[in-house]
């Protein structure tokens, strides 16, 4: 691997990791509060990508504005989905998981009908290409990294220092005890689902200019999110951050060195090893 190749692969790894971290932290947040694996998370990511496509390409809004709108709109959609579909199930976890599976298929189907099955391109905010000693990387890829870092810092600050964020941590640790302190657990569940969806939407919206947007784009990324939260520890946001970084590097360097399929295999092999050696994941309790 030449120095230029290395730089290129490194930047790609960071970009990929950024998207993975956003995706997985939303996934794990929902798990930590509701104790369900949200199989529709990939489709929420896809909706984020379509949202940014419509806002920026059809309504010609500035990319960053479109990004913010995509996050908000899909976040609110998440809140509605929780209220209308998940809440009435009264924390019956298995039915909720099956519901999320059905929701994934329904959203994919609805998206195919409403938006069409073809690939849609999204123009990024910049068309400059940066060169670092032989390596070339487009600004639209690079910009993903600081935006994701900013979103993650905001998420950590929210959870750590705001009253509502503290309430979320309390519910994640013991929902009965949280209710006894006066926390409205149903409200926190709803909010967590909304924030989780907003994070998935951010991931989808940020990646949209790099890849094409289509109704099926969520299928592979949900597997990535799954590997990441098992790696990091189910329910741990720090775990999702570290797991996302690891998988971003594995995928990027694995693909450059050995090709895409081998990279995928390495990811799963890593998962199996972690599950054998430390079943609760790196940050799991």
């Amino acid at each position: 691997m030449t120095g230029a190749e290395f730089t290129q692969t490194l930047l790609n790894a960071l970009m990929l990791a950024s998207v993975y971290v956003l995706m997985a932290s939303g996934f794990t947040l929902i798990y930590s509060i509701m104790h369900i694996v949200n199989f529709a998370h990939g489709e929420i990511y896809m909706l984020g990508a379509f949202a940014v496509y419509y806002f920026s390409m059809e309504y010609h809004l500035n990319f960053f504005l479109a990004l913010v709108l995509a996050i908000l709109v899909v976040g609110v959609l998440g809140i509605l989905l929780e209220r209308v579909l998940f809440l009435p199930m009264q924390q019956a976890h298995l039915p909720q998981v099956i519901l999320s599976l059905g929701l994934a298929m329904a959203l994919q189907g609805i998206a195919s009908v409403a938006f069409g099955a073809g690939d849609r391109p999204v123009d990024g905010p910049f068309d400059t290409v940066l060169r670092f000693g032989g390596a070339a990387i487009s600004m639209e890829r690079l910009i993903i990294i600081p935006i994701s870092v900013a979103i993650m810092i905001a998420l950590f600050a929210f959870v750590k220092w705001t009253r509502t964020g503290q309430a979320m941590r309390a519910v994640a640790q013991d929902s009965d005890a949280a209710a006894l302190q006066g926390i409205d657990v149903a409200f926190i569940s709803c909010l967590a689902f909304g924030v989780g969806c907003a994070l998935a939407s951010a991931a989808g919206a940020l990646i949209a200019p790099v890849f094409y947007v289509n109704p099926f784009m969520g299928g592979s990324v949900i597997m990535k999110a799954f590997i990441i939260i098992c790696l990091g520890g189910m329910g741990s946001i720090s775990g999702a951050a570290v797991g996302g970084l690891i998988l971003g590097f594995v995928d990027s360097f694995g693909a450059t060195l050995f090709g895409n399929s081998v990279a995928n295999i390495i990811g799963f092999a890593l998962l199996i090893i972690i599950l054998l050696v430390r079943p609760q994941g790196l940050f799991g309790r």
Partner: protein
Amino acid sequence: MHLKLTDVTVHYGKVQAVKNVSLEVDAGDIVALVGANGAGKTTLLRTISGLHPPTAGEIRFMGQRIDHLRPAQIVRLGIGHVPEGRKVFPSMTVLENLLMGAYSRRDRGSVREDVESVYQHFPVLAQRHGQLAGTLSGGEQQMLAIGRALMSKPKLMLMDEPSLGLSPIVVEHIAEIIASINKTGTAIVLVEQNVALALQLANRGYVMATGEIVLHGKSSDLMQNEEVARAFLGR
């Protein structure tokens, strides 16, 4: 302050865990609630706090019906709950746990002072204020659970087996704390396996068996009662 349960029945699915329970707690009371494993004591406390809805009957607190309120609303009315098994937030520090206890309060300004007064009750919590609650010993966790419930400034405190699994010295300390909380005007419902201790602290008591109240009265009378003595006091 007055809590009144009238013919409260609670089910888990089809299984009846609490049957037609009527019970009263007055201001200043310490009421012991004792009974064998599985008698329904925890279920009853959870129902009072709104964690599990009753299937029949009525619960009134200070005249207001609370049996269909959510737990958050019930805490705000002034019922604190020290749950069975302590249930502290393991990945939060001691201080964060105490602050969570004040979550329902509107007078945020005086929360810090109340943290200090909890620390006076339990100096060990002050020493460990930055430590994660999950790393505390059982006795320390119990003190934290009590301190956390105090932070909501309850008029009535429900305590579910605060002595469980603790050494005799710690149990004695907890008993002193319960008495001193009561002296500041907080009524207490005390569920205990340690029946001698509960009846000693309480002024009145209820005995539960398979979901029903089978005996109640002044605790001095209950202590003299032959059945109670045989079943619980090992006499």
